[in-house]
Structure formats: structure tokens, C-alpha cells
């Protein structure tokens, strides 16, 4: 139980998270870590609307998530922690030292990014951040849905991308 997946996905809560992972993992709570969303009642209402009634959503600022992470990890229910970008996940990893796996679920096209997978586009800096996470012992892999093969970071960054 506890936190089953630490996911980076710029769409935050959406179909793949709630249904694609939610059903097989029997998710009962999502921790959405995003300073902007945690400061906006409207954004929170929007995301809560898309979640089934039997699934809790906790909206945390990064600092709050650092403080609360141990409690989430000890929760008897199955949960998923979600950030919208690599920066936020890196801050959580650095501040807690308690995250061993990171899932790349969706980092989409933006100027300056190179396509690495159908659903992963990265700048040079972002690649460096992910490599740094891996060097600190965090297992980083890309996997949009449970039925897909997890693609390890090294394999994903090997070559020129556009796959």
C-alpha cells in the first residue's frame, strides 16, 4: 500500500492517472504537489471534479509535501504522488531523500525541448536534472500507462531521440 507511484505529468490529474493507473493500483488517494494549484481554490475544484468520490485528493505546496511525505508513505491505502514538472519532483527527492523511483508519465512539447518518446520531450537542462536524480540512486523510467513497458532513463536518452 502507501505511495505506489511518484509521477511527473504536466497534465496532472487526467484519464491515464485516474483510470489507467487508478484501476489496477486500486488508488484511494492522489497527492498533487504543485504550488500554483495549492494556492488556487478554483484549480483544486477543477481537479477534484474529475476524481471519483471514493478517491481523496490532497493538494500540497512543495514544502508541505516534504513535511507530509512520511505520513503519505505510511498510509494504509494505495496512493499516487504527482508533480507537473521535473523541478518539483527534484525538490521533493532532495528534501526528503525518501523517494526511490520516479515515473515519467507525460512531459509534452514546448519550445527548446527535444522529443525522446511519444509523450516525453526534454530540454538539455531537464535531461541533466533527470541524470542527476539517477546518479543519486533514484530509479527513473518512462511509462505512460501500466500496460506499457517501462523505459529506463538511460535507454530513453541513448541516441538522438525522436522515437
Amino acid at each position, binding site marked *: 500500500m502507501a505511495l505506489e507511484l511518484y509521477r511527473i505529468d*504536466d*497534465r*496532472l*490529474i*487526467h*484519464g491515464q*492517472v*485516474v*483510470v489507467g493507473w487508478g484501476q489496477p493500483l486500486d488508488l484511494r488517494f492522489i497527492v498533487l504537489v504543485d504550488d500554483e494549484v495549492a494556492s488556487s481554490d*478554483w484549480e483544486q475544484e*477543477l*481537479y477534484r*471534479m*474529475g*476524481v471519483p468520490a471514493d478517491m481523496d485528493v490532497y493538494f500540497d505546496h512543495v514544502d508541505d509535501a516534504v513535511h507530509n511525505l512520511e505520513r503519505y508513505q505510511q498510509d494504509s491505502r494505495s496512493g499516487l504522488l504527482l508533480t507537473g514538472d521535473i523541478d518539483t519532483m527534484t525538490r521533493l527527492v532532495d528534501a526528503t531523500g525518501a523517494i526511490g523511483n520516479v515515473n515519467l508519465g*507525460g512531459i*509534452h*512539447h*514546448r519550445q527548446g525541448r527535444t522529443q525522446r518518446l*511519444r*509523450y516525453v520531450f526534454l530540454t538539455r537542462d531537464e535531461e541533466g536534472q533527470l541524470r542527476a536524480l539517477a546518479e543519486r540512486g533514484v530509479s527513473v523510467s518512462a511509462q505512460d500507462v501500466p500496460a506499457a513497458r517501462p523505459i529506463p532513463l538511460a535507454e530513453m536518452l541513448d541516441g538522438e531521440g525522436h522515437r
Partner: protein
Amino acid sequence: MSDPRAIVAGHGAFAEGMLSAIEQITGRSDVFLGVTNSDLSTRDVEQLMRKRIEASGAQVVFTDLPAGSCTMAARRIQRDRPDVSVVTGVNLAALLDFVFGSDAGAADAVQHAAKKGREALAVTGVPRGA
């Protein structure tokens, strides 16, 4: 033929499939515009949907899943376009009803289509081992 009156938006080829079915059943391909969220960020889905709404004048968005990014995008658009209605969990029966009901006005047609869509969802028979 007339301007599209609604957007159909969803995962993968959901909209394409729905529009294909509607065309086959009614011969009408002018009522809806399709949007897919495939491989798009939330921001890009919103931009695409906003363009389709503004270009067509559509005031209704039908989406496939309450938690989907198309629904999120449509709800964001409603912030500055409160005249836009969003219907989530749409099915073919609801869309077919809208095809024939929307000539008179979108507001009533949306409610009527949602009712038809709910009524069309039915279970018959019992699976073995149940």
C-alpha cells in the same frame, strides 16, 4: 449544411469514431468538430479547443471522461466563456439526439441530449459466473 454547433473531444480517436458513426447513421457531418488530446499537454489541448470554439461559434463541448484533459480544458475555457456548456461522459445516443435537437437552441438541446445519453446506457443479460 450549417456551421458546427458543438465540439466533441476525447482521448485517442474517440471524437473521430463518434463523428464517423454519426455520419453513417444520419449523414450529418456538419454538426460537430472533433478534438483529440493525443500526445498534447493540457495547455495545448486548451489552445486547440479554444481555436475550434472561436472559429466555429460552437457553444457546447461534449467530452468523453470527467477526469480527462479535454474536460479540464473545456472547464478552463468556461472561466472566460460562461456561455459555453460542457457535457462529460458523452455517448453516441446523446450526440445523435443533439444532431436533431440543436436546431431549436443549444440550451434545451444539451439537457435533452444528456437525458437521452443516460437512458441509452442499459444492461441486458447476466454474465456466466456472476
